[in-house]
C-alpha cells in the first residue's frame, strides 16, 4: 500500500488511501482519547450530540436534507475501542464522483459538513442545546442497556469487565450506565472543547480523489479547529497474568448458557499468536470448531479471538447449561494440544492460508482499510498487510508452540439460566 500518514495541522494527521475501484468514497475523522471509566461515557456521547445539528443546519431534518441532496451521503457518529484508546468521531460514506449524475462533486460538501459537525455545533448559553443533550444521553443509556439483549455480546462484555477490572481495557467503549447518568450538559461541553483543542485527530480517506484534492477539501472544512497543546496518543498496557483463576457467573431467564473464557498471553510474538489462535479457535477448521462443535455436538459456536493490542485471548461458546464441565474440559484440552504442537499438517497450512487470505483481501474493503490504518496508528504498529503476510509465511511451529505456552487461563464467565 502506498499510503502516507502526514500532518495537516497541529496534532491532525491525514492518511490517504487512493483507490479507483470503489463506488464510494470514505472519509473518517476520529479523536483519540485514553480509555478511562471517568471519561468514557462523555467521549461516547459527544459525537451523537454533535450529530444533532450545526449552527447552519440546526436540526436533524435540515441535516438529513443536506445529506439527501448529496445522493444519500451518510455521516455516522462512531465510537470504537482500539487497545486502551477510545476513538470517537464521524465516518462518512458517499457515492464516488464518477457515478454522480450530472458530474456533481461530493467530497468537498461532505468534508465541509463534517467540519461543521465537529466545529460549529448548535449551542445555547455557551453549551450544547439541553434538549439534544438530554435525548442523546437517554439514547446512550438505552444503547448501554441493550447490550444485555444480545446474550453473546453481553457475556463477552461481562468477561472483559471482570477480567480487566481496574485496567482501562475493562471499560466499555460506551462507558458505564452510572457515569453517563451523572453527566451534565456544561461538563460535556467542557470535555468537547478540550477534545477539539487537545486530543489527537486522525483523518483517513479512501477513494478516487487525489491527495491534493483531499487536503484542499479538509483545509477548508477544518479551518475552524481551535488547536492548542495536543496530547500524545495513549499507549496500551498488557494484561498481567493472575495467580488464581477468577470464576464469575450470572443467571438470566435464557434457554442457552454462554461460556466465556479469558486467557492472559505472556508473549509479544504476535504472528505466532495469530497462527496459534487460528488453529485453536479462530476459524471453522480450528480445533474448537472441529471438536467442541463437530465431534462432540456441544454447541453451535465455539471460537477464540486474539487481541494483539491487549495481549489476551478469549473463547466464546453457547451451550446447554448442564454441558458446562464437558465444554470447559474440551476447550482447555484443545488449548493444551496447540501448546504441545499436537496438530496435523493441514491444520497449520489452513491457518496460514486463512490468515494470508484475510490480509490479502484487506485492500478490497474500504471499511477494513480504514479500521486497519486507524488501529495501526493508535497502537503504534507499523507493519503493512504485505509485511504481516510475509511474517505469517515465515513463522515456524516452534515459535507457535513457544508463544502459545505463555497463554494461561485467567477468568471464566458463565451465563446460566434462572432455573438451572
Amino acid at each position, binding site marked *: 500500500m502506498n499510503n502516507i500518514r502526514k500532518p495537516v495541522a497541529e496534532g491532525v494527521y491525514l492518511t490517504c488511501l487512493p483507490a479507483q475501484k470503489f463506488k464510494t468514497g470514505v472519509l473518517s475523522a476520529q479523536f483519540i482519547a485514553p480509555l478511562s471509566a471517568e471519561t468514557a461515557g462523555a467521549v461516547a456521547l459527544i459525537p451523537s450530540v454533535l450529530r444533532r445539528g450545526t449552527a447552519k443546519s440546526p436540526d436533524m431534518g435540515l441535516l*438529513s436534507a443536506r445529506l439527501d441532496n448529496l445522493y444519500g451521503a451518510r455521516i455516522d457518529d462512531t465510537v470504537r475501542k482500539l487497545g486502551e484508546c477510545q476513538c470517537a468521531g464521524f465516518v462518512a460514506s458517499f*457515492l464516488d464522483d464518477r457515478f454522480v*449524475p450530472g458530474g456533481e462533486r461530493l467530497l468537498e460538501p461532505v468534508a465541509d459538513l463534517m467540519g461543521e459537525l465537529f466545529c460549529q455545533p448548535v449551542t445555547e448559553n455557551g453549551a450544547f442545546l439541553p434538549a439534544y443533550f438530554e435525548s442523546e444521553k437517554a439514547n446512550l443509556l*438505552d444503547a448501554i442497556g441493550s447490550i444485555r439483549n444480545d446474550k*453473546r455480546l453481553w457475556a463477552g462484555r461481562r468477561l472483559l469487565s471482570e477480567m480487566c477490572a481496574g485496567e482501562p481495557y475493562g471499560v466499555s467503549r460506551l462507558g458505564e450506565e452510572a457515569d453517563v447518568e451523572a453527566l451534565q450538559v456544561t461538563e460535556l461541553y467542557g470535555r468537547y472543547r478540550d477534545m477539539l483543542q487537545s486530543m489527537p485527530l486522525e483523518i483517513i480517506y479512501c477513494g478516487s480523489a487525489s491527495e491534493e484534492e483531499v487536503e484542499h477539501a479538509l483545509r477548508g472544512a477544518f479551518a475552524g479547529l481551535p488547536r492548542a497543546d495536543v496530547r500524545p496518543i495513549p499507549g496500551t498496557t498488557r494484561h498481567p497474568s493472575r495467580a488464581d483463576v477468577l470464576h464469575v457467573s450470572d443467571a438470566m431467564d435464557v434457554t442457552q448458557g454462554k461460556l466465556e473464557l479469558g486467557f492472559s498471553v505472556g508473549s509479544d510474538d504476535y504472528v505466532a499468536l495469530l497462527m496459534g489462535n487460528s488453529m485453536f479457535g479462530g476459524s*471453522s477448521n480450528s480445533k474448537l470448531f472441529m471438536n467442541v462443535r463437530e465431534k462432540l455436538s456441544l454447541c453451535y459456536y465455539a471460537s477464540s479471538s486474539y487481541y494483539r493490542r491487549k495481549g489476551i485471548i478469549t473463547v466464546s461458546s453457547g451451550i446447554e447449561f448442564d454441558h458446562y464441565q464437558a465444554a470447559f474440559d474440551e476447550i482447555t484440552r484443545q488449548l493444551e494440544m496447540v501448546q504441545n504442537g499436537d496438530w496435523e499438517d493441514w491444520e497449520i497450512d*489452513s491457518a496460514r492460508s486463512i490468515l494470508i487470505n484475510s490480509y490479502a483481501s484487506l485492500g478490497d474493503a474500504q471499511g477494513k482499510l480504514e479500521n486497519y490504518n486507524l488501529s495501526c496508528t493508535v497502537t503504534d504498529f507499523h507493519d503493512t498487510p504485505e509485511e504481516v503476510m510475509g511474517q505469517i509465511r515465515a513463522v515456524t511451529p516452534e515459535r507457535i508452540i513457544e508463544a502459545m505456552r505463555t497463554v494461561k487461563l485467567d477468568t471464566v464467565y458463565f451465563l446460566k439460566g434462572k432455573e438451572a
Partner: protein
Amino acid sequence: MNVTQYDRIGERVYRKKLDNGLELRIVPRPGYVRKYAFFATRYGGMDTRFQLNGQWLDTPAGIAHYLEHKMFDTEDGNALQELAKNGAEPNAFTSNAMTGYYFDSTSHFEENLRILLSFVSVPYFTKESVDKEQGIIAQEIRMIEDNPDWQIYHRMVQGMYANNTARTAIAGSVESIRDITAETLYRCHEAFYTPSNMILTVVGDVEPGRVEEIAVEILPKRGGAAVPRDYGQEPEGVATHELKRSMEVATPQFLAGFKCRPPEAGAAWFRNALVGELASDMLLGESSPLYLKLYDDGLINATFGGDYELLPGYACFYAGGDSRDARAVTDAIIQEAARIGGGQFDTSLYDRLRRTMYGEYVRSFNSFETMAVSMTEGYFHGYDPFLFPEVFESITPEDIRAFLRDNVTPERCVLSEIVPIDADAEESA
C-alpha cells in the same frame, strides 16, 4: 456468453443458461484481489410442502436449513477443510426462499470453485452424521430463540400470516428437527439441488469462459423437473392484531407490520419492491417529518427503521425499534400514512429521497455479497436488479400514495412487542 453493459451503474454482466438448466452469471471486478462465488438453490425454510414424482410431500420445519448444514459433509471428509487449506472462507445460509453456499478467496480460485460445485451437488449423509447434527442445530435454535430481534420479527409474521409457510421458523424447532432423517434429506436434495433450480454467480477478476468450463465439467449433465410447491392459502386479513411477551431485554422493543398484497413475479415484483422501499423512506425514514417528530418526542431513537419484504405469496411492510410507547408510535405511523396517501405529499422531500435511494443502491453494489444475492433474488423472482435506474425512474408520487393508502391501515396491522421481564411483572401486579 451474453454480455450486458450497464453504463449508468458501471457494471458488466456475463450470462449463460447451461444445457443442464443452470443459470450462470459473472460480474467482472478488475483491480480486486478477492474472488467470490455464490451458488444458490431456490429452496428455503418456506418450501416444506412440495410435489416430487407426482406425490405431495410434507417435510419437517427446518429441513432446508438442516440440509444446508449436512451438505458440507463429503465422502472424503468435510468440504470446509478442503476449502480452508486454500485459505478460502466458505459459508452458507438458508433464508425463507433460498439456500446459498459461497466462498471468498484470494488464491486457488478454480480449485475452490470445483470444491464448492462438487460438495453442493453431491450429497453424502449417514444416519450417524445426521443424528450428530441434532445437538449442534438444537444449540443454534436455542441461540436464535434467545434473540429478542428474532422473536419480535417471528411473532409479527406469525400474527400476520395464518397459513403462508413464510411463518415457519427457518431453522425449525428443537422438536421439529427430531423427525429429520438421512432419507428425507436425500429426497429434498433430489428435488431442489438440481442445476435447473440453481444459479451460480461469480464476482471478481476471473475469466468467464473458465467458470463456464468448470461448471459444465463438475455439475450433473441434466437438470430435474420443476417442483410445484404449496405455500398455503392465505386470507386477506391478519391473524392477530397484537402480540406481546416478556424477555431478558433492557428496553421495550416493537415491530409494527402491515400485511400487503404481494405482486406478480417479474418486472412488477422489482418495481413493487422499490415502491415499498421508497414509501418507507417517505413515511418514516430519517428525513421524514414523522421520524423527526417521534425522535424529538423521545418516542423513538436511532434504532428505529423500516423495511419492505417480499416472498412468494407474502408481502410485509414493517417498522420498529426501541420505544416506551409502541402503541403511540404505531398509531402515528398509520395516521401519517393516511395523510400522505390522502394527498399531503411533499414533493421536495420526495425528490431528495429519490436521490438518496439512488445513491444507496449504486453504493450497495460495492459489496460482492450484495451483488451476488441481488442477482440471485432477481433470477428467482424474474427481474434484473441492474436495471434499477430505469425501473426507479418509472415510479411516480401516485405509486407511493397508493401504496401507503392501500397497505398501511389499522386492518392490516400487527403490533409485536417484547418488554423487559420486570416491567411485565409490574403490569400484571
